[in-house]
């Protein structure tokens, strides 16, 4: 899906846990997620902390979307 949407000229950020698979598949902007059963959350956290975590991930993805890349880039800072 990532590749097909990009082929249509729309940049995509792939938020995913297993970064190597995303690299194998060919995503260009990759944001590492939390864990496979809960990529965008963490049931071990309180509701407030989990919300903060989610917001931070979405903001990081938006930032990645704005960033010009030359080749596959993992935003893991």
């Amino acid at each position, binding site marked *: 899906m990532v590749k097909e949407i990009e082929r249509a000229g729309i940049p995509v950020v792939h938020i995913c*846990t*297993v*970064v*190597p*698979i995303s690299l*194998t598949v060919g995503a260009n902007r990759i944001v*590492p997620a*939390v*864990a*496979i*059963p809960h990529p965008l959350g963490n049931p071990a956290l309180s509701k407030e902390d989990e919300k903060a975590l989610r917001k931070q991930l979405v903001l990081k993805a938006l930032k990645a979307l704005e960033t010009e890349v030359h080749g596959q880039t993992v935003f893991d800072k």
Partner: protein
Amino acid sequence: MRLELGNIFIKDMQFGEATKVENGVLYINKKELLEAVGGDNRIASIEVDIAKPGEETRIMPVKDVIEPRVKVEGPGGIFPGFISKVDVVGSGKTHVLKGAAVVTAGKIVGFQEGIIDMSGPGAEYTPFSKTNNLVLVCTPVDNLPQHEHEQAVRLIGLKAAAYIGEAGRNVKPDEVKVYETLPLFEGAKKYPDLPKVAYVYMLQTQGLLHDTYVYGVDAKRIVPTLIYPTEVMDGAIVSGNCVSACDKNPTYNHLNNPIIEDLYERHGKDYNFVGVIITNENVTLADKERSSNWTAKLAEYLGLDAVIISEEGFGNPDTDLMMNCKKITAKGIKTVLVTDEYAGRDGASQSLADADKAADAVVTAGNANEIIELPPMKKVIGDLKPADVIAGGFAGSLKPDGSIVAELQVITGATSEIGFNKLSATQF
């Protein structure tokens, strides 16, 4: 560490007055068995049945399959950390009721348990159509959380196998096999010219009912470590899996791991089989990186020349497999991988979710997406209804006449990634 495995061949299984083995027949006192496995207030009822090879019987949904064994000499007891204390097992003597199995079944625990057919085309795909199966159909109390349900049924299966295994304690085995692994330096001294080979044994540990236990420890909480191969034969590794039945290792398969047995076969002749590195398949990238770093580090530390790596499961564990392969290869150590494939119903899709050019020697255990047809059976132990929701099933899998059309995935042990079955493919 040296273990003598005494195989007692079981040709038939019947209910009887006393639990005993006589002339190759295993008799089971049902009442005593129920007393041995009962007492968990999370389980409302347990029904016991027997399924024999060739019968028109379907068992589903199957949670685990376990081989009855008993330790007759040496430290510890069978299934350390669950049934026995946590003494180190794997030495002395163990008796095996070869040809008998305990199968736990009943109300579906998760969403993806398997099918065992005792005859017909489905029987060809599972090794457990050839064993005499004592089936425990466990019904949980209402509203029992899934993880509690899984644990309760797991323990019932282990207790039943240990109870039945006791019947073999004083029986003279029909066949004795000896397996021995020397401490590392002694082994290297004894076989100075042979290449050093180990087995990297990947254990399914994704959580959410995909778990494996080592001496009672949830293996997602370990860092990769070393284990003598014979420890595994005494039940050091126990399955807590009940998902995607085709390529998960039931406890039976751990006890009988063909990679371990085959590595012993030519040990001391063509190579020095130095031991087993166990590792996990966790759900965060950091865990995957850490565990594969450790398998590679241990392989280097042991001075290995080659390893065999087996996967358990599919999807994201394909990445664990590739990371192990890539990092061990980078140490100058040869690797052979054992996996299965999810290549689509026509077999034309990419087989694994991940790939690497270091993976240049790979053994497949078959394509789990193949569609198979299972005719109706005269008798069903358990419940047919989950056919539409188990992994490999789909809406409409269960036909009104009781036949099932589904992917091969539904069959317990069909595409065993430790080679405990007959499926494979060869490219010429």
